[in-house]
């Protein structure tokens, strides 16, 4: 693997680690997702440091070049992530609906009580 690519991969991995740490520090993502991004950075670091392992794996799996395997892995991770988020959004939507309904029903009840008092 050319040295420039190794440097680029390490730089991207470090950038991801710093970015994730900053966001996590501000409490804007949960640890669960931080772990995922740390894992992605770790894979990048592994590829940069031990390219031979990945070259062997990609040959075994029938990829012509290692970069295809790496891209494939990342597309897979991103697809899973989007799927997980779709599930999460659906769950959040249900909770929001429940909240809106309960607050609206309570408001109606409150109006009724106020109406009876006055």
């Amino acid at each position, binding site marked *: 693997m050319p040295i420039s690519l190794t440097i680029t991969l390490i730089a991207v991995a470090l950038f991801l680690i710093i970015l994730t740490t900053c966001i996590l520090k501000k409490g804007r993502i949960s640890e669960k997702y931080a772990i995922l991004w740390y894992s992605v950075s770790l894979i990048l670091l592994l590829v940069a440091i031990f390219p031979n392992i990945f070259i062997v794996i990609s040959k075994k799996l029938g990829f012509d070049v290692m970069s295809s395997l790496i891209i494939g892995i990342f597309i897979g991770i991103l697809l899973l992530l989007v799927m997980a988020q779709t599930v999460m959004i659906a769950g959040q*939507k249900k909770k*929001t*609906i429940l909240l*809106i*309904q309960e*607050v*609206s*029903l309570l*408001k*109606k009840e409150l109006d009724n009580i106020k109406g009876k008092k006055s």
Partner: protein
Amino acid sequence: MEKVLLIIPAYNEEDNILNTYNSIINYNKKSKVKYDVIVINDCSTDCTSEICHKNKIPVIDLIHNLGIGGAVQTGYKYAKENDYDIAVQFDGDGQHDIRYVKDIITPVIKNEADMVIGSRFITNIDTFKSTFARRIGIKVISVFMKFATGKKIYDTTSGFRACNKKIIEDFSLSYPNEYPEPITTAELLKKKYTIKEIPVEMKEREAGTSSIKTWKNIYYMLNVTIALLMIKIRRYKKCQ
């Protein structure tokens, strides 16, 4: 005597809501019945809420727009909290005729059905039966519904329905937010509830536009079809 609640979901129905309410009140007086009403104002941007409050129409103002399913479910929750025996979904846009409420609640009162659907397609009365494209759509959903549940329902998208306490309880726990009519009907059939269809006449909307716009029809069909196929393979706990 059974406590009957008419659930009227309303989104931007300022032109129709008062007429609809008055028609119910007049019918109550004339026929010596007592159908209670609850309007669920789905965060309308027009004067629906103001009209309801000014005319003392019982209304729940949703604090955020939920869509038809969420609004109707709020009505079922209200019915459950206030111990109603029968809940009837009734459109706020003047499509449904109050005179048919008696017909659709009678089988529920007599325990002949858990839910009754007011159907446009099992009658020969020459009445408004929706546009041609939508009729085809309803037929296709009907075929998929038969495939998913083994039962034939003719008017799969009718929003004119009456149900008993068991279903009120069921609906207040879970109700789909999108495409609720065909989906809930199929789910109820899978749970072995008895559903009956009764012929009714429906009028064309008095004002405003229907929530299902033409360009959305294909998307609607696709979603309902997928939902019905899922209902086919999903397992449901049978009703007691």
